[in-house]
Every structure is written in structure tokens, then in C-alpha cells.
């Protein structure tokens, strides 16, 4: 197994990219983009995380098996979040509109 050695130059470039990302995300957070604020914040965070995984953690140069492990972990995290969301995002609003009678309040 010949090991791929990433050059320090590339590490410095990644470092600057990550710093840039940090300032961008703070700058974006203090402006109002409505519902897009959270999307922007998470997109930048994901971009930063991807850089760390690909270069600092050498995933780009790793064997297929390691890459598969990474994809699997993201997939299972997505299962956890998405399938739970099927419940929370489709809850019927009817229950909350029931006007409770007085018996529902404790004396």
C-alpha cells in the first residue's frame, strides 16, 4: 500500500479556506436571509467539514473501503434524521386545535 503524502502547501490552502468559511458563516449569520439563514449556515459547515474529511483526514486518497465507511455513516445519520422527520413534519394539526374543556385544567 503506497501511502499518499499530502504536501504542506495544500494543508495551508485548506487552512485558509476553513478560516474563510468561518468568517463567511459569521458574516452571513448577522444578516437576515429569512428561512435561508439556517440553510446557509449548514451549507458552509458542511463545506468546511468536507474539506477536513477529504484533505486533513486524507479521505480523498484513502482506499475505496474507507470512503464507503464514510458514505455509510452519512447515510445512516440521514436515516435517523429523515425517518424521524416523517413523523414530526407530517403531524396532524387537528389535535392541537381541540379546545379543551375545563376538566383539562387541574384545580
Amino acid at each position, binding site marked *: 500500500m503506497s501511502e499518499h503524502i499530502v504536501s504542506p502547501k495544500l494543508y495551508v490552502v485548506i487552512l485558509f479556506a476553513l478560516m474563510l468559511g468561518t468568517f463567511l458563516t459569521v458574516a452571513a449569520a448577522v444578516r437576515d436571509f429569512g428561512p435561508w439563514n439556517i440553510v446557509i449556515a449548514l451549507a458552509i459547515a458542511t463545506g468546511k467539514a468536507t474539506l477536513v474529511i477529504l484533505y486533513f483526514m486524507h479521505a480523498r486518497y484513502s482506499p475505496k473501503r474507507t470512503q464507503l465507511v464514510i458514505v455509510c*455513516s452519512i447515510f445512516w445519520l440521514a*436515516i*435517523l434524521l429523515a*425517518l424521524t422527520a*416523517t413523523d414530526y413534519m*407530517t403531524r396532524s394539526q387537528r389535535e392541537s386545535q381541540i379546545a379543551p374543556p375545563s376538566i383539562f385544567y387541574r384545580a
Partner: protein
Amino acid sequence: MSNTPPTPDELPHKHYLNATYGSGIRSWLLTTDHKRIALLYLASVTVFFFIGGVFATMIRIHLLTPRGALVTPETYNKLFTMHGVAMIFFFLIPSIPAVFGNFLIPLMIGAKDLAFPKINLLSWYIYLIGGCFVLYSFGTGGLDTGWTFYTPLSSVYSNSAVTPAVIGIFINGFSSILTGLNFIVTIHTMRAPGMTWFRLPLFVWAHYATSLVMILGTPVVAITLLLAGLERMFHLGFFNPALGGDPILFQHLFWFYSHPAVYIMILPSMGVVSEIIPTFARKPIFGYSFIAGSSIAIAVIGFLVWAHHMFVTGESAYAALTFSFLSYLVAIPSAVKVFNWTSTLYKGSISWDPPMIYALGFIGLFVIGGLTGLFLACLGLDIHIHDTYFVVAHFHYIMVGGAVMGYVGGLHFWWPKITGRLYPRSLSRFAAIILFIGFNLTFFPQFILGYLGMPRRYHTYPPEFQVLNVLSTAGASILALGYLLPMSYLIWSMRYGKVAGPNPWPATGLEWKTDSPPLTENFEVTPEVTWEPYDFKSRPDLGLETGAPLPAPAHGDD
């Protein structure tokens, strides 16, 4: 009687049991030999099995009369909770993987040990520490939340020792994670030359799938129980509605692990059966790649079905429909396995050795357990049978009828390898039949009880349910005999049993190509695999159908 060719008179001169690294007990407690660690697990899960078994016995005696014959409501609630916790977290989940998986995976793939022997020992110690916490909880006030720890009952209202139990299960989770991690890495990197993925024994495939569930599911239940524990200790509100939290979220997180955990229990058992059936039918297993693939499919689809435990919580109707649909999908790979096992018997040369009786018993019970799962996955029907004895019967068919039957069957199959000795053949076949009958008598009436509407976890019940409860208790006493019998003759055989020789059945796996009991290093030289799995025809070394005498008898004492 029929076949008593010469057997070796003594065990091999040197093996893992008598190899000394330092003195007596220390050589066991500090061992990194996967085979010795397996035996450490065997001893400790047996302890928990008997603790859980005592609780189960008391539950069944209590339910003899409608008003409860034995204990107070508080005690009854503690009994079924502690029965569940001991059996699920400390017996069923570690049982086959930690005992047989540990012992056999390196042998089966031709490795000297697991990839991380020290971590392997560490996971046993973690298991022990977790176990001590849980025993501490049992001893100081017990536990009365149900093994599911539903909030806010567990985090606010229960007056029992919830905190140490939750900590114990949290700690124990890491034992499971490390075991799974060790198996996956070992199967990936430690295979002997020639041992390709599709030459792996199906037992190894099943453990690969099990390990996936262990590493992907266990961390979620660990964090969930940690949050519930913190909630109880510091009055936080993650899952407590009085403080704004959502108790349904706890159930989502809990079942994300705890449903796949059922597959941690049953997949290894399926692996055991997939070894036993071709060995005793003496022909290659039918549909190897489908059985291997179905293990992985079960592990993956098993993660997509958890909210079928929550159909009556008021979860969204869309979520319920999604999860019901996905739950039906997981039935297909299980069915594939059953059909392939049955087809393997066709045109086989079937021996009636004890492991085979256990394996066929497993199929019978697993079929009932699996098919009743179809009832529970059905939305329209689950509303009625949810949280009744129907569910209790269903999961006992899977976990006890399936997983434990496979465990005991595996014990009979590999006992000669583990100890180097044989056990009484007729007695063990008798025990297998007793176990099968006792089990059905105990749990089949509970299906009817459930459909009649008897809710689970009731210490007292309306009198019209008594007849079926008495039947069930009667069955439980037969079942208890079915467990005590193997326990006693297996212990007896450790000293007095006939010497087995390296390959008594004979079977085709690599584990049978080394001594019984094996060397500490497993093999004198790293083996090279040139044959397909379960191929008896191209294995002249087994001495079958070539006119040469069998190297060793199946069993010779009757």
C-alpha cells in the same frame, strides 16, 4: 452403535486451555486469546441468563391466579423489568456474538486472533462493569420502568434505582460497539489466503451484518439513555413534557437502536443454523449468496422500520404508513433464508444428530415468530394487538425460540471444538425436544391471550384469562427443564465426555481443520483455502464417500 470407528483417546497435548501464560486465574483475566475471552463471556452471560430466568419463573408463578399468586404489584413490575434488562442487554445481545463470534470468527477465516485482541478483552471488562452497575440497581431498590425506560415514567416518576441501571446499560453499549468494530475490521483485513468474501462461512456473514447493527445502532441508544439519565439526575427536560420535552422523541431514539437490536439477537442465530444445516445434511447450502445477501439486507432494512413500535402513540398517519410498508419489506429476506434452509435438506444425507434437531426446532419457532411479525406490522391489526400478550408471545418466539434455540444449538455443534469432548447423544436430543415442546406450550397460549385483549405487564388480570395463563405457566416449567438438562450434561461432559477429535461431525469449515481444542495460535501454519464453502465432494480429507473410514464418529454412545 452403528458407527464407532476409532476415536483419539486423549485430548491433544497442547491447546489453548492448558497453555500457560503465568499462573492460573491471572492467565484467564489478562488473556488476549479470543478463545479464552469467549469462554469468559460464556460464563458471564450464563450468570445473567440464570438471573433473568429466575425472574421469569417468578413472573409465571405469579400469573397463575388472576389476583397474582406471589408478589406485590411493585415487585411484579420490578421482576418483568429486571427480566427484560438482564435477558436483552446482558444475555441475548452478547450471547452468540461474544461467545461463538469471538471463538469462531478468527478460526473460520484462518486468522491467529481478532484484529484488536486487547480491545476484545477490554470489551469483556466493560461488559462486566456495566453488568455490575445493573446488578447494583437490582440489589438496591430494583428497577420498575420496563426495559424500554419510557419517559417521563423512568426519568421523573419512578422511585426505583433507574440511574445506576441506565449508566450500566450505557457502559455496556461500548462493549457491544467494540465487539462489532473488532469483528468488522477482522473480517475485512485478517482473512487467510484464498478466503474470498464468497467463501466465507455464512456464520461470518451473519456476524458481519450483526456488527453493522452494533456499530450503527448502539451509539444512538447510548446517547438516548445518557440524556434520559441526565434528565433524571439534574431535572432537565429533554423528554419530559412538563418541562417542554417530547416523550415521543425518546421512543424514536430508543427504537432506532432497539428494533435493530432484535437483529443483533436473531442474525447470529441464523448464522449458526446456516452452519448446522449443510453440515448435517452433508451438502452445500442452497442459495449461498442469497442467504449471505439476506443477512446484510436484514441489517440494513432493519434500520428503517423502528416506528412500528409506535403505531399507537399518535405519531403521524403518514409516518405510520411508511413504517408499516418498510416493516413488510424486512420480512422478505427472512423468508428467503427459511426457504433456502428447507431446500438444503432436499436430497441431503440428513443425520439426526442433536445440533440438527436444535436447528430444525429453530426453524419451526422462527417461522411462527416471523410470521406473527406480519400481524404486528399490519397497521389495522396492530392497533388491537399492540402492547398485549400477542406482542409478548411474538418477541419471545423470535428471541427465545429463535435466538436462544440457535445459541443452544450452536453450543451443541461447537462444544466438541471448544472443549474437545462429546456429550451424551440421546439425552441431548431428548433435551432439544423438551425445549421445543415446553417453549410452544409456554408462549402459544399467549397469542390467544393477546388477541383476547390481555395487556402486557399486568400483575393482575380479569378471571376469564386464567386458563390460558395456567397453561403458559405449565409450559414454562417444562421449558425450565429444557434449559437445565443441557446445562448439566454439558458440564458433565467437560470431564467425562468422550474425546471428540478434530472433526467429529465432520464439517467443512476451517475451524474443524485444527485440533479440538485448538492451539493458542489457532493453526500450526496459516491455512490456504482452495475449496468452496460447504463442499463435501471435493474434500477427500473428510473421508466421506471415498471408502476411507470416517476420521471420527458422529457420536458413538447409543
